[in-house]
């Protein structure tokens, strides 16, 4: 393979560390930036640093925020008695899309995944327990992924939280909207049946 000049090789190398970016994508982005006007590149560089410097974790819910507490935790129109637990900050965005949920959030920053070395200690659980001990919270909605990791996390949370007298519910899982029953395997079908509701 052709060797790149040192600054370009360095840029490609840095880009390759980003999630979902391989050698080819890194080269494409690097060449794009190379041709772009200097102002554009400067704005990108500043945005990266600005985000890095200003964004922190909300001390209550661990969501990414500029202000602490975050916009969800400090919004008086939202219901503090219900907390929706998600794995990542972008899962908050997914739940918000429904416009159905008006409670608070808690971001775990991961799910139980032994192969990745993630056990309970690695999840942001401590401030969740503090919030529940506060006595305001009535219900915890566990919205972790429908995967082995997400399920193990949900079950672990339920065991941890139930003794505190908080109701724990799990989002429904099963057949994705727009797909066909024919393609549902045993695990998906079992989940769908468990999550059935009266009509």
């Amino acid at each position, binding site marked *: 393979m052709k060797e790149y000049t040192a600054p370009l090789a360095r840029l490609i190398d840095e880009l390759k560390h980003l999630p*979902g970016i391989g050698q080819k994508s890194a080269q494409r982005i690097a060449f794009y930036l190379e041709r772009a006007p200097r102002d554009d590149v400067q704005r990108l560089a500043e945005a990266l640093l600005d985000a890095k410097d200003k964004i922190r974790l909300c001390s209550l819910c661990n969501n990414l925020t500029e202000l602490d507490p975050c916009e969800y935790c400090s919004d008086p129109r939202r219901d503090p008695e219900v907390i929706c637990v998600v794995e990542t900050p972008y899962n908050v965005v997914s739940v918000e899309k429904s416009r159905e949920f008006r409670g608070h959030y808690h971001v775990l920053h991961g799910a139980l995944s032994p*192969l990745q070395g993630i*056990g309970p200690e690695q999840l942001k659980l401590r401030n969740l327990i503090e919030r529940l001990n506060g006595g305001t919270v009535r219900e915890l909605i566990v919205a972790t992924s429908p995967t082995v990791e997400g399920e193990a996390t949900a079950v672990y949370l339920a065991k941890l939280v139930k003794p505190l007298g908080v109701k724990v519910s799990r989002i429904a899982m099963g057949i*994705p909207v727009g797909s066909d029953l024919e393609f549902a395997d045993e695990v998906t079908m079992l989940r769908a049946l468990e999550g059935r509701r009266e009509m």
Partner: protein
Amino acid sequence: MPLVETEAIVLRTHRLGEADKIVSLLTRQLGRLRAVAKGALSRRSRFGSALEPLSYIRLWIYDREGRDLQRLGSAEVVESFFEMQKDYRMQVAAQYLAEVTERFLPDREVNERAFRLLMAVLRALKHFGEVNRPLLFFDYWLLRLGGFLPDLSCCMKCRKSFAGQAGFYVESSESLLCSACRSGGSGTQLSAQALALIDEFRSARIEEWLRMKKAPAGSRELRLFLEQVIEAHLERKLVTRRLLAEEG
């Protein structure tokens, strides 16, 4: 490019780009390999739960010999180990099996006995809900099949048989010493009771052994030593071993 049908156990998956997954598999007919599952993360994925860790699946693979990464055509679940792993302790145990298998078995080497061992141990975990004996059985047989099992009957220095006596080992060692040969009372003890267990399961099928009685004392002790032997052989720390230790 031939489309090959094989059975496999999913060892682990990594995200690749926006919607794809890299799947590490122990296949029955082609040995251990890695394949790309296109679109596995998309909402309309054809793979369903088939690519979840430890799923026993039937799959069709575009096998290009000599390539590091194969392409997965399709996969369907034969037997799922999803429900079992809802229990964190079982999840750690199951994924310990996956991690050891992935590190221990060489690429593209068909190993029917290792495949059957992993299946039998997974089923034992699922049906008996016990961790110590299935993992012990797995560690012992994997080491033995690979030819890496140390002599557990006698002291490796003076060759005296343990015959009802305890053995001792130091950290990251792969063998046992008698009480006379260990230096200055150092090392972890492996009790005579734990060593005697080997005779109990060596000639039994795993489900026979598990049905016999409640987990005998010593099975955890022996398991911890064999885990250490595996780590020493692999010359690396296993991430799941640390989490397993935290679970007791």
